[in-house]
């Protein structure tokens, strides 16, 4: 079992609380703890900046790295912090073999990395929560079946699972479709490899909530099971799910980068940070270090700050650790 699994199992038993208003929020333990930890503040700022940079990439980036009309081949391999003597363009982080601005490529690349990361987490979260609710609320054979599948899947590391699922889905698709559906296949593969954590946490919390008085009261007044499940139980089991989701985002970003780096993720025509690192590796030996290093550093900072945020959120929401 790997580190990430341990991380998540420890958040499984968080007691849910009622969400408060803005004022309550500002006076809450969460904000207090946030203010007292400079590392966490820094991680929050870095994460926000990187999210914004990815979101507004088309307006920030000096060029659109995927529009051949905007690339100047003559500027190929311009070192970082250099103004090209041919075109007068300034390359903050240098340019690659086709005169593509590395800074712009990173902005657009992190856009894809974050898109895949978020989508995969949402996929896993929705699927895991739904199955967890079903297993916890209904019990019986559904519970046994879902949890057995979860057990089986937990025996494999999730990155291996994602790789295998990606390979299998790709095997079933015609070859001509591979490049265009890569992003969807990637999201499904990473999402499917990761639902178990959510399902386990939600199942446990649902079983606790199910026997509480407010659920019995809802039953007594004759609410249908569906309403009890979605309007009463669901809001109370969401807290652990959100924590797992934050840690899961860092893991999904890393999983996406790893698959793309291995050449089985995003194609070079639609590069994510992982793809950029794979491409950059080819130029490492010939001295154009910036093509590799800057996307690598971008991924590192992104993964590290999201990870720190997730860790902090887990600690602060887990009463057992206080």
């Amino acid at each position, binding site marked *: *079992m*790997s*580190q990430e699994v341990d991380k998540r199992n420890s958040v499984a038993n968080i007691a849910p609380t009622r969400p408060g208003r803005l004022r309550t929020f500002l006076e809450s333990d969460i904000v207090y703890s946030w203010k007292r930890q400079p590392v966490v503040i820094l991680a929050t700022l870095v994460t926000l900046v990187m999210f914004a940079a990815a979101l507004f990439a088309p307006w920030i980036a000096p060029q659109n790295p995927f529009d051949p009309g905007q690339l100047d081949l003559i500027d190929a391999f311009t070192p970082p912090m250099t103004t090209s003597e041919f075109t007068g363009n300034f390359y903050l982080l240098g340019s690659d073999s086709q005169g593509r601005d590395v800074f712009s490529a990173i902005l657009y690349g992190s856009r894809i990395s974050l898109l895949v990361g978020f989508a995969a987490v949402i996929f896993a979260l929705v699927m895991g929560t739904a199955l967890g609710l079903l297993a916890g609320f209904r019990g019986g054979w559904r519970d046994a079946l879902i949890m*057995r599948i979860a*057990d*089986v899947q937990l*025996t*494999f*590391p999730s*990155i*291996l699972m994602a*790789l*295998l699922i*990606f*390979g*299998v889905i*790709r*095997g*079933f698709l015609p*070859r001509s479709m591979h490049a265009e559906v890569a992003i969807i296949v990637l999201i499904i593969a990473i999402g499917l490899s990761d639902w178990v954590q959510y399902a386990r946490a939600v199942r446990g919390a649902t079983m606790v909530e199910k026997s509480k008085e407010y659920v019995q009261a809802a039953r007594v007044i004759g609410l249908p099971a569906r309403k009890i499940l979605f309007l009463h139980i669901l809001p109370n089991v969401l807290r652990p799910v959100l924590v797992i989701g934050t840690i899961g985002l*860092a893991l999904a970003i*890393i999983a996406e*980068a*790893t698959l793309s*780096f*291995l*050449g*089985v993720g995003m194609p070079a025509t639609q590069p994510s940070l*992982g793809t950029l*690192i794979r491409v950059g*590796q080819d130029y*490492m*030996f010939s001295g154009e*270090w910036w093509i*590799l*290093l800057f996307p*690598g550093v971008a*991924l*590192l900072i992104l*993964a*590290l700050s999201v*990870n*720190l945020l997730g860790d902090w959120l887990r600690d602060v929401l887990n009463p057992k650790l206080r």
Partner: protein
Amino acid sequence: MLAFLIQRVLQAIFVMFVVALISFSLFHYVGDPVLNMLGQEATEADRAALRAQLGLDQPVVVQFWNFVVNAAQFEFGISYRSARPVTDLILERLPATLELATISAIFAVVMGILLGIYTALRRRSWLAHFIMTASLIGVSLPTFLIGVLLIYVFAVELGVLPAFGRGETVDLGWWDTGLLTTSGLRSLILPAITLGLFQLTLIMRLVRAEMLEVLSTDYIKFARARGLSKRVVNLRHALKNTMIPVITIIGLQLGTIIAFAIITETVFQWPGVGALFITAVRFVDVPVMAAYLMMIALVFVVINLVVDLLYYAVDPRLRAQGGGK
């Protein structure tokens, strides 16, 4: 005992069945193997003959049974890409992967336990703080990025270690080893560190946590009160009791090392089974994919089964409950 054993074995068989079903359906739905093998010029009669010869005219259930029987004998057919038997491909690449996995496992275990003991005993020293912080960053780093950065520093900038490949190997007849030549050993250093680093941090943190817990127990205080030397207390009394959970985790991590070898092998162009699998996924080489799928599933199922049984043997509480979970 027997019920527990049967339940675990049944679960293992169930996993293998599911994986076999997925592998089989890959074969079944990805293209027509007959068209792949005969090409465009073949007549309908030729195709029918080959179909019969391959057993493809039989009911799906029979075909699946044949697939399982063949798989049990490590028979996965011919690779679509290199036109060689999959079994040969895997067997000739297995030594590279196993050597890499073994060396990184040893590296991770030895360094992990040593650093874990150190950070537990000298908990307040700056070096221990530094190691713990570094391990946190190490956990957040993707494996492939560590590999790439190591190559950049040690192979490109410093030029002291080879960046890719296995170096010179010695053929022992049935085993192709890189451990007997200097270049082979030098080539092993960076990949082994890359692959072992994650496990190292995991083992280190576990040893540290267990050690701190044990050190605060009464029998350690008593041993100190008896005037035993620090060395004896720390190593003989405390360390021994931290090792049970550590050994379990190490066992479970063996499979993870083999899985993560896929990434490391790709980074360092290491000619192992993992790199073979990645190439197969990239080129949709179904027989190789199916074989790897079955192989890795078997490795994980066996490791989990053994660990479960070891738990049972070690922990009397499980036996008292009649083997229930």
